[in-house]
């Protein structure tokens, strides 16, 4: 598998480590109800199809990346900096 890091270009899988679903970016407010925190911490989708995952360019530029890929075809559809995704989400909230 090869991932295209926005900073470093296309690199081999071995340079990256995997974290899990990109929903980790959507951290609830400190005072959010326990159900919301429970969903954030413990509930995950397991889609056959398009999914968004967090990868870390550990052997590269140390960027956290949001990789959009298809779990059926293994196609990688997009790779964005988690920082950009988080900032964009923050703006949309306002």
């Amino acid at each position: 598998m090869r991932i295209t890091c926005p900073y470093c270009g296309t690199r081999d899988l071995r340079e990256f480590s995997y974290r899990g679903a990109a929903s980790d970016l959507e951290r609830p407010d400190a005072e959010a109800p326990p159900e919301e925190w429970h969903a954030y911490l413990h509930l995950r989708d397991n889609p056959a199809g398009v999914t968004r995952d967090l990868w870390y360019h550990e052997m590269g530029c140390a960027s956290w990346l949001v990789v959009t890929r298809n779990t059926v075809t293994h196609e990688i559809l997009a790779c964005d900096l988690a920082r950009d995704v988080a900032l964009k989400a923050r703006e949309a909230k306002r």
Partner: protein
Amino acid sequence: MRIDGAGLINRNKPVTFSFDGRSYQGFEGDTLASALLANGVRLMGRSFKYHRPRGVFTAGSEEPNALMTVGRGAAQTPNVRATVQEIYEGLEARSQNRWPSLSADLLSVNDLLSPFLGAGFYYKTFMWPRSFWEKLYEPVIRRAAGLGALSGAPDTARYDRAYAFCDLLVVGSGPSGLMAALTAARAGADVILCEEDSAFGGRLNSEAEEIDGAPARDWVQAVLAELDSLPNVRLMKRTTVTGAYDQGTYGALQRVALHMADPGDRPLETFWHIAAKACVLAAGALERPIAFPMNDRPGVMMASALRSYLHRFNVAPGKRVAVFGNNDGARQTAEDLRAAGVEVAALVDSRPEAELPVGFNAFKGAQVIHTKGYMGLKSITVSTGSREEVIEADCLAVSGGWNPTLHLTCHMGARPVWDETLAAFLPAEKSVPGMIPAGAAKGIFSTAGCLADGQRAAKEALKALGLKAKASDLPAASDAPYSVAPLWQVPGKGRAWLDFQNDVTVKDVKQAAQENFRSVEHMKRYTTQGMATDQGKNSNVGALAVLADATGRGIPETGTTTFRPPFAPVSIAAMGAGARGKGFAPERFTTSHAANIARGAPMIEAGLWYRPSYFPRPGDAGWQEACNREVGFVRNAVGVCDVSTLGKIDIQGPDAAAFLDFVYCNTFSTLKEGRVRYGLMLREDGHVMDDGTCARLGETHYLMTTTTAAAGQVMKHLEFVSQALRPELDVSFTSVTEHWAQFAVAGPKSRALLDSLLDAPVDESAFPFMGCGAVTVAGVPARLFRISFSGEHAYEIAVPARYGAALYGDLVARAEVLGGGAYGMEALNVLRIEKGFITHAEIHGRTTAFDIGMGRMVSARKDCIGKAASRREGLSGPEREQLVGLRPVLPEGRLPAGAHLFSENRPPTRENSEGYVTSTCFSPSLGHEIALGFLKNGPLRRGEVVKLVDHLRGVETLCTVCDPVFIDPDGGRMRG
């Protein structure tokens, strides 16, 4: 028998080798199989289950029968396919799976028992009693049914791993592959051409073909010469592309030196990772057998293999050769044999309408229904339906048609598609992104068709690469049509083999169907068809056809046959090259490493780091004596210890304080400059991640330390929080673990030691307990922290790593003058347990801040990672196992780590466990063992006597629950 001809062997270079202790001669360019055939050796192996005598069946990597052990001692390699192994001077090969010898194998008694050993016999016969399976049945079956064995000695040979990148990877160098490589190379693409064989050319090396009116090999040589001259082409022969993976990644195994008598310093094999923007799969096709009764005799082989031996190796595998087929390959083989001067005993074509040349003992619409000759073929029986004839023959060439070598197209989950006309599976459309099947791999079987399709595939690839093909003509070649009449099995008396390697017959597959294993996946597992090292290359399609017939379905309705990587066996040594021994885990050394080794300290691993365990002295009774002495240094004088392995993260920026407030559960924005604070870090799920100190070096500058074990994890976590959760914070950080050598100087005389060492004495007002700041040592800028992991008045001093070794030597020498010295990990551990300081033995991933008595550190005034979850029900309260100290009721009582804790009057069973011991040591200060552990509602049970039981070590000790701080509970020594 060797015959005349212009094959690819070098008759000027004879090569001597041995098989089962007998010496033979072949020529350079021979495989083990061709050289043995040339010497008249037909018996080359025994089958897996029935120990049937077997001869070579193919001329390629799909060989199911001729598996041998090559080499001796540590370098011995089992299950080498004789059809792939090239001979070299002095090569030693031995047959396998026989005892005492290949010709007299006593275990062939299994063959007589075959009526009882059919499909599923393991499951049916050896079920009960259960305990017999492990002790009796399995070992006996394993001994009787097996492949070659490893030597058991470490392999000293070299292997390698390598990486390559290209525009276009061409897999296979037959007419399609060569044409594709040439077209792409001329257009300027960066091309890698991989060929599994030791020679480029594919089937062109094995057929009497012509291209542009000259022998096909001339064209091959011309193309190779041109490719070799181009700087944008890499030619890799003896290289099998073994797997296709995501985003154009391919695995390939190169046999670098397996064909050499003396590999020198070359690796035997190299495993390649190839990243290719595009790929042309020109892997050709594999001829398939026909399952007729007793089709496994030595001397029965594939017709295409026979032609390989004939044309490429100039070997006639028999004196009287019969040919049996369902397509024109049979006729072609007979004609080639005749042209080579080999007697053709019979030409049997199953097609009634076949047009057969004159001058042969030819049978149309006929089948081979039986064979004779236990150790080697003697005769075949041919039936036309109306009459039967027994014909003497010592070799039978068989062709059941061709299966495209589409294995790589299945590696990403695509299923091949059945083609009724070709009676074969073809690659599915777009099965692997970027891979373009071409030629025979796609079901195009004529040479002219392959040349044209290779060019077409290259053009398609070039288009995707944004390159333009140069106009060029196609060479002229034969365009004979391929017609095949499906023939999978021939009924008759006797077993008809489908999977030669695993001894699976037509009857076994029918039995599977009868017992309702009708799915192809169930049939395979029940019969073990396709599960040998050839991975069903010779048998999958045939077995599927027999299953389809037995279940009254068509082939596409019955299922497909798919393939997983690797295409051919890959040695683990090659895949794991560079990762053996020390290569498996690199070593990290501190700057004091050499000095510690010089002092004779046994080193222990801490992650990848190596740290001194203790410092032995002459006359010591053992490590405990050294450890006690070193604890004494710190408690009574001064000890020195290298603590550089702790993670150090330099954090800077206007928002550094806000960032730390968010990652630590306690507050750092209130920390004064020049001060240090203990920090506790939680995971978002409310459990403790790590702990350590964090110093504020300036208004916007902090230095965080992590535990040795969690340094990498914490760094990754900080990056995540910073980039993904708090991107608005202006903060940067970098790991400086390697940049600073840091030493603990601990004990009542630590101040005196530093005063003698530093350029200026320690200023008490600048360095109160938990103070930090800049100092200089012999003019070198250093950092001094007044922190303690021992409970004594202590400091840590850090210098740039290049001064580490010098400073360590100086510190230890000064400590020794003061009645102290270096201390190792054993003493460090005792010192911290005596003070109740935790490590990852306590914060092992399932403990919360509440559990370790730090629940109140989770600040109520701010949000932080793990705060919401730490308030969750069940993560605090009296039901939680919480940190306690334990001391034995009797001074000699032992408190082993891992032991469980029970109420004194309850039986020590799992359901009664109320806690466990995490850290333990002998405390020289107290004169008995002490321990840290977790106990339900522990802090409120101080003074209670509990029962400690270690079932593994057979220890049972009564102990008193106490405060985890055993020494100096008010911390006066540390602060004073």
